[in-house]
């Protein structure tokens, strides 16, 4: 096979790229059609934020609980873990027992972080 300018990596994403661009075109087309045919009758009252039918009260960008943020931090731990697990699990035969013990240790350390968070009461939602 002659060396072609496209690398294997780019080849396998060529179709994904075509799919994505067709998607953008399609969605853009829908938006364009809707823009052309929809009515446009402006009234100041229509642009008030929704609050069960009454005029909005107070600051609309309200603060939310810090707990949500801590869950996002915990997620980073486990998502990074999953990223490490994926290549390892496809190459399990190559690493064998050696890889298994290392993965046990890796997951043990990560579990300690979950246990720590649990012990700190981060996971409690009350």
């Amino acid at each position, binding site marked *: *096979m002659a060396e072609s300018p*496209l690398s294997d990596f780019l*080849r*396998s*994403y*060529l*179709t*994904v790229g*075509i*799919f*994505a661009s*067709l*998607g*953008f075109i399609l*969605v853009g087309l*829908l*938006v364009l059609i*809707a823009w052309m*045919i*929809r*009515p446009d*009758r402006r009234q100041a009252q*229509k*642009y*008030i*934020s*929704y*609050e*069960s039918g009454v005029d909005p009260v107070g600051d*609309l*960008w*309200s603060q*939310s609980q810090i*707990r*949500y943020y801590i*869950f*996002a931090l*915990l*997620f980073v731990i*486990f*998502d990074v*873990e*999953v990223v490490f*697990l*994926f290549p390892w*699990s*496809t190459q*399990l035969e190559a690493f*064998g*027992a050696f890889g*298994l013990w290392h*993965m046990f240790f890796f*997951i043990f350390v990560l*579990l300690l972080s*979950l246990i720590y968070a*649990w012990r700190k009461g981060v*996971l*409690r*939602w*009350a």
Partner: protein
Amino acid sequence: MDPLLSGDVGLAEILIVLLKVVVAFAALLIGVMLMVWFERKLVADMQNRLGPNRAGPFGVLQTLADGIKLFFKEELSPQNADPFVYRLAPYLSLIPAFLVFAVVPIAGNFSGDNDGVVTMFGHETLMQVADPQIGILLVLAMSSVAVYGIMLAGWSSGSKYPLLGSVRATSQMVSYEAALGLSVATVLIVAGSLSTNLIVDGQAGGRWNLWMTGLVPFVVFLIAGTAELNRPPFDLVEAEQELVGGFHTEYTALRFAMFFLAEFMNTVTMSAIIVTLFFGGPSGPSFGLDGWFADYVLGFGYFFAKLLVFLFVFVWFRATLPRLRYDQLMDLGWKLLIPLALGWFLVVAAVKVAIDTTWNVAVVLGVAAAGLLLGGMLLKLAIRSGSEHRTDEFVGGDR
């Protein structure tokens, strides 16, 4: 990798790719349209109602009518909204929804040495839009991008209910994505590849990952997947009784339709991913047939039949299960699904290594079962002592 693109990429190859893309698009959009109708009709049946029955035979065209209606509605963006992000969010929700479908094998003959390769206009290709080497990672990446769509939609609306909905949604999707990833990793141990074509090929002949991985990853994936889709019983994100509509409260007309479309598209693609990962995708007995019938009709038939089962399951969940409370949701995700998926992952890895090397599989299984039991007991102990600790002040110390 797709054999179509392994040689020189000329006009013919590009045209075939375009054809596949258009067919996949049409199939997905028609599928979504029918899914909306299927869900409304089925829920109506389960609630002893008639459901849509006016537009077209059995109300099949109701979705189309609703969609066309939304084109003719005025678009409003609330005065407090961040205009750019507010307009961007529906795209971030919709584009990832159909990009996932690009890596799903929807037909092809996987019996014998066929490996799902079909011949189209004299070129060999696979019946999926793309087969990148990291297909499953693309799925997880796209479901992460979808979180942005929902989060930014709620934040940029500059309104109270959408903000609450989007904060809930982000936390929930992020929590269950960890469990989702861990159960996928278990499948990868058995499949040995991230490519969706190879995952399906490894399951040909009834060696479905459903039982090759021992059922647990499938159950975890199904629960985490339902939570990831924000579908009932995990629909706290748009709990109508508390949050009006959640993150899309301030969206009107076509932009609302885009969120709606994305939601149902995600349901269809999630079912397709479940079928691909655990139920052998389009593989199935070919009855000694060959050629176009086995490639297209049988392959697609198997795929569609399996897909329909999961679409039904998702609707069934919605019609039967009551919504979870937020603390129950988080407990289920972090204290049950993640430890379970992680433990099961290690067990499957140990068994795989035992089979590859000279270890005694029975001993490994015994140790694994003991380890899981011990872990489960510790978990139960932790949860029980925690709840005792909390209720002490109300009921006295002797419980």
